[in-house]
């Protein structure tokens, strides 16, 4: 696992987490470059197919960032994302798959530091876990 650098696919909500990531950048906060951000309009728009596709294609982790509960630009998208995450985790557990490779976190536009810390923390945790087992499985 020497020299292993995890690849994280990040789905960032346009209104909060993406702006939070922007703030981390403009504030010149240092954090690992392991996340590939994808801007989405709402955490509630992240269908499980996107998470699964990234994981099965070999991403080591998937991050979903949304507005704090009560702050959703579309009122309830993040609450629905939260329920979908509960379902996703339950299915992963039932199949013996590591749900710890997927993280949902609320990060507001003002929380640049929280964004940088989240990426750091997630990268570190995935370094410990090692590469996604699906990387070596072309049979998926």
């Amino acid at each position: 696992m020497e020299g292993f650098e995890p690849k994280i696919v990040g789905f960032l909500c346009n209104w909060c987490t993406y702006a939070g990531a922007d703030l981390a950048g403009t504030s010149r906060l240092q954090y690992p470059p392991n996340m590939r951000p994808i801007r989405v309009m709402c955490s509630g728009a992240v269908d499980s197919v996107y998470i699964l596709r990234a994981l099965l294609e070999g991403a080591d982790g998937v991050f979903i960032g949304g507005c704090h509960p009560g702050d959703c630009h579309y009122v309830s998208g993040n609450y629905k994302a939260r329920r979908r995450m509960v379902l996703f985790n339950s299915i992963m557990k039932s199949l013996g798959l590591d749900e710890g490779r997927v993280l949902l976190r609320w990060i507001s536009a003002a929380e640049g530091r929280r964004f940088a810390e989240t990426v750091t923390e997630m990268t570190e945790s995935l370094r410990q876990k090692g590469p996604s087992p699906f990387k070596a499985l072309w049979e998926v």
Partner: protein
Amino acid sequence: MKGILKVTDKNPEATIRNLCRQWLSEKSPSARPQAQRLAALLVPAVGRNGVFTRVLVSDPNRLAEVTPLLPVMSGNGAAIVAEIARGPATDTKVGLFLRPCELRAVVELVKLRQIVLDNVVLIGIDCPGTYKAAGFSTIVPYRHSSIQARDPDFNNNFVRNQKDYLTNEELRVACQLCEFPKPLVFDLAIGFLGMEVDQELWLEAATDKGKALLEGIELEAGEEPAKRRQALAELVEGRKARAEKQIRELDKVIMGPEKLVRYFANCLNCHNCMKVCPVCYCRECFFESEVFQRDLAEHVRLSRHKGLTRMPSETLLFHLTRMNHMMTSCVACGICEDSCPVAIGLTTLFKKVSRNAQAEFGYLAGRSLEEPLPLTTFREEEFRSLGEE
């Protein structure tokens, strides 16, 4: 309104046919108003050439050909209901004979806005298990002495010999694990489990539509007999124990990425499991949309991720996504497995995954028309730790 219906001539199936005759006839003995009469009934039937299916019967003189107690499942009937029960209320009312798992799927489809119940009456019937339609006429005869072809009373014997239900391993896998032998949501329910079926059947109307069907029918009103409740409880306990055992066996071969990939190894990507699934309701599946029509350059790009890609690609993605989309409404009817050309054991897998998923939300697919679908609702004060840490 509930009570015991006397069985005539020791023939429970003929007694149910007789009910059908009253519902279909122009003038029933009670001369009830035209509006309460059913224009047609969806009932299982056996063709003379050995076709086991369902028919929409409208002519009371053809009722001899229907077999309401036929223990064969050719598909989940909820899918048929979704095709025919869509329009606004009219005077044409159709009665639907459905098994408990089919009724549960109907409930889910109503909540998914795929079924409108205005023109239909749900007639639930006990179901201790079914055979697959495919092979019923050929396999069963060799192993059972009583068969449809040789034994014209097969259906009645099936409901008479209630001791066999827990041990009959020729029943569909889903049925052997089923915890719902009795309808949960219905207008009218017909019960035979735990009853002396040559003497009596159990009838229960849960709605006005159901009560209307019982008008003019002589019932010995009362509570559900204790022996019936006990028989149901024993059957459910036996089935639960079997399900637990099957899930333990399943866990040995599915848990973890390596095993899971192997479990789905032979998938042909035919999508039959999705097409026959009663609750997979999308008119066009995302997986059959243009998103998955890629040109050569795109396939090559994908191949470069791992150096080689399986073709057809993304079979496991299909199954995992389907689970994420459908598991909260899955009724574990197992019709997906029946349709799989490479015999992937989907029934027990979906049973396990759906049960765990629904438990997260305190939900049970098909239990109630009022309970909102888990993914269409939320409470602010729930799952608080998610997203925070």
